């Protein structure tokens, strides 16, 4: 019986080609637009370190004076102070812990064919690489002892290594950064988690990758350039970055079991109370927090507001498309009241009529879905042409492909529901009499 309905539907759709085309177009455009933006949002809210993200946590302490709170509400501070980061580092209460900050340096290749250039990197402490599972092509990171010695060593990412040293690779060689020589001790295998979750949130959290890694204390000693916000209060002379009145560092810990997580929480609270006893952390209503990686990304709202606005626009567009399709289907079905009356008079049940028209709208939905997929592929292509950092990520995966088709069919069956319901309520005898 279903095959018969499909045949009827195909016939009916074929008879009114323009009408069918318009409906398929409306569904296709709607689905295409919203799938494009849903896909963009999906890839942007993806997990930057699958498999490891559940073990990574961000502790957050609020050392700001209480008077500052009035204007900033419950916002989190811009990071850790140097003092708290060093205290938590030396307490070693997590399985791994690292402090870090973004920076930039002038790379001086000392060659005629390559002029100096700026590169962005990260100043980190030794646990960074193993904690975030950054894979080395060759070499290793540095040790905690080298952190303390302020060693002049550097880890390069694959792109910069290739740019400077070609295929031979740079491990063991010297790189000159900001007029200082560093020995290359490791090269990462093009490590670029998306988004760059470990850094302070800024406009480049998507797309940009760090190309060099230096020991944090070395960079601080040499007064290298830092990126990101440095928020201070009170005055603490010129020792801004080492003061306990300036927040700027990122601090991450690895906690391998739920038990460790809760014990670390207790440790943080104890630390907070201890510091309060010595006069720090005046905000009593801002106890320490421990965010998981994904929770942290949500908290930081890494998705730019432009993108969420575009999503709402696309969803609104699809809604109008659906309304139009309902209107067109209603027109199409009710125009066939005569046919329905005859079928009903010949013994078709309401259910039969409903299924017949349901099949017809599902068919339109199917075609619309296929068109929508093509529109979405085109939409994603245009997104990839944009200059934004997230643009390169805009690719549809299997999960999105399936949900696009499901969305199309569900949408059109929903759109077809009302018209089909109206159609099956056409009384059999009345229309015959009218004829």
């Amino acid at each position, binding site marked *: 019986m279903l095959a018969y309905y499909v045949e009827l539907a195909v016939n009916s759709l074929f008879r009114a080609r323009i009408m069918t085309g318009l409906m398929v177009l409306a569904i296709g455009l709607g689905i295409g637009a919203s799938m494009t933006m849903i896909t963009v949002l999906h890839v942007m809210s993806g997990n930057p370190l699958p498999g490891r993200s559940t073990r990574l946590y961000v502790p957050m302490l609020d050392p700001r004076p209480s008077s500052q709170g009035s204007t900033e509400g419950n916002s989190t501070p811009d990071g850790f102070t140097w003092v708290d980061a060093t205290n938590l580092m030396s307490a070693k209460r997590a399985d791994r812990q690292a402090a870090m900050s973004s920076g930039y340096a002038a790379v001086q290749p000392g060659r005629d064919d390559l002029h100096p250039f700026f590169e962005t990197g990260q100043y980190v402490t030794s646990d960074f690489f193993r904690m975030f599972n950054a894979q080395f092509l060759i070499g290793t990171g540095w040790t905690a002892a080298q952190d303390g010695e302020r060693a002049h060593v550097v880890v390069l990412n694959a792109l910069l290594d290739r740019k400077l040293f070609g295929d031979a690779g740079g491990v063991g060689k010297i790189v000159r950064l900001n007029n200082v020589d560093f020995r290359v001790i490791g090269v990462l295998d093009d490590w670029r988690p998306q988004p760059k979750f470990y850094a302070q949130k800024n406009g480049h959290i998507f797309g940009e990758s760090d190309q060099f890694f230096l020991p944090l204390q070395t960079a601080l000693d040499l007064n290298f350039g830092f990126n990101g916000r440095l928020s201070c209060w009170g005055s603490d002379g010129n020792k801004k970055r080492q003061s306990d009145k300036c927040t700027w560092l990122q601090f991450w810990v690895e906690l391998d079991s739920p038990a460790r997580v809760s014990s670390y929480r207790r440790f943080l609270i104890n630390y907070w109370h201890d510091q309060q006893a010595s006069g720090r952390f005046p905000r009593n209503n801002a106890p320490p927090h421990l965010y998981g990686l994904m929770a942290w990304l949500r908290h930081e709202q890494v998705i730019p507001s432009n993108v969420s606005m575009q999503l709402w626009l696309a969803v609104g*567009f699809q809604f109008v498309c659906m309304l139009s399709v309902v209107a067109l289907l209603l027109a199409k079905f009710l125009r066939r009241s005569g046919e329905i009356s005859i079928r009903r008079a010949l013994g078709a049940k309401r259910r039969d009529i409903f299924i017949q028209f349901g099949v017809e709208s599902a068919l339109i939905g199917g075609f619309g879905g296929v068109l929508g997929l093509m529109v979405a592929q085109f939409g994603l292509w245009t997104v990839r042409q944009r200059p934004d950092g997230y643009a390169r990520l805009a690719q549809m995966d299997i999960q999105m492909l399936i949900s696009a088709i499901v969305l199309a069919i569900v949408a059109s069956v929903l759109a077809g529901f009302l018209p089909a319901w109206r159609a099956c309520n056409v009384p059999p005898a009345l229309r015959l009499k009218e004829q």
Partner: protein
Amino acid sequence: MRIIKLELQPILVALRRHKLIASLLAILVAFTCAVVCNVAFMIQQRVMSTQLSSGIAEHQLIAIQSVTLDPSANQVVRHQEDVSALRTISGIESAAAVDTLPLDENDNAQGTCASEQALLRAAQAQAIVGNCAQVSVYDGSPGMVKTLGLHLLAGRDFHLDEFVSGSQLDPPVAIITRALAKKLYPNGDALGETLYTDPDKPIRIVGIVDNVLRPSLHGSHGNYDSMFWPQYPDQSVVTYVISVATQNRAWVLKRVSTALYQLDANRILGRPRAFAQVRASYFQNDESMIGLLVCSALGLLLVSALGITGLSNFWVQQRMRTVGIRRALGATRMDILRYFQIENFIIVSFGVVFGILMGIGLNLLLMVHFEVSKLPLWYLALGAVALWILGQLAALAPALRASKLSPVAATRNI
């Protein structure tokens, strides 16, 4: 009155009996009205900001950023050597070293007041109050005014002996924009007045130029609050602006980097850019958003026009028999046409009323979550008119078809 009532009553009765289709049409109209009005407004806002005039001679400017890496260098001397070298390139009309440019995003803004008392009051209030403004400062070497092509409205360019170097020293004189002059000195002539960014350092206004945009835009107010200081940039980062005739631009763009590297290779040069590129990169996001918004507005109108036409078509057709009877009873073609057009007008009006309410609501929502300003009501009025026209056009074809029905055929066929 009676006639209007006679016309309207059957329409209203018919509407009451076809609630579903009528309300579907009204919803479609309402939603389209709300969304399109907001989208059109956002487009207009963005287009406005991308088309702000920068106030400098954009079409003949080239900018290149240079960072000296030699820590022992005397930056001011280096910059002047670079500028002299640039001036020797043929095709270059003038050149100067500046710390930033309009739309460069590198904003050095200072709280500036029209008098010392105003400055003290503002410092006390810790806010920009009274005759004060947040002003972007452009530092530059001699030749800045000429190279940028600033249009002097009153006063004069800087004298050579007025130029100072070192950020600690504030210069004794400044040139300010027309907008800033009006803001700081609303009642009088700003030329010759003294302004303050620091209590002990009076700065005399020696010139007023036409409006120059700030390095980064701050909403819709105060974008032209800029002033120029005769101060050599003394950081390792500097921007060289070069004025060049349009026909020589490509030629000069190719030679600028080589000339500067020849003088000192231990430096980082940005890509030399025509000012059009500086502007384009500042507004990159807005441009792509405008494209997207225009596409979605057009798509929305197209799709809802589709829906409205489909519905009107169907609705008229469904009532062909009634039309036949009315025609047989003596209604003229005009009567039939008018009937359907008025009916459409009523339904669209319902939709428009809801649409305006929804549009205002949507705008409020956008204002909370995104940086969108308040939607002017005339946008909604314009949207309403557009939808009325769209509705009338959509109803016209089927209504005309219905009116052409001959009375006999009408009763026989259906």
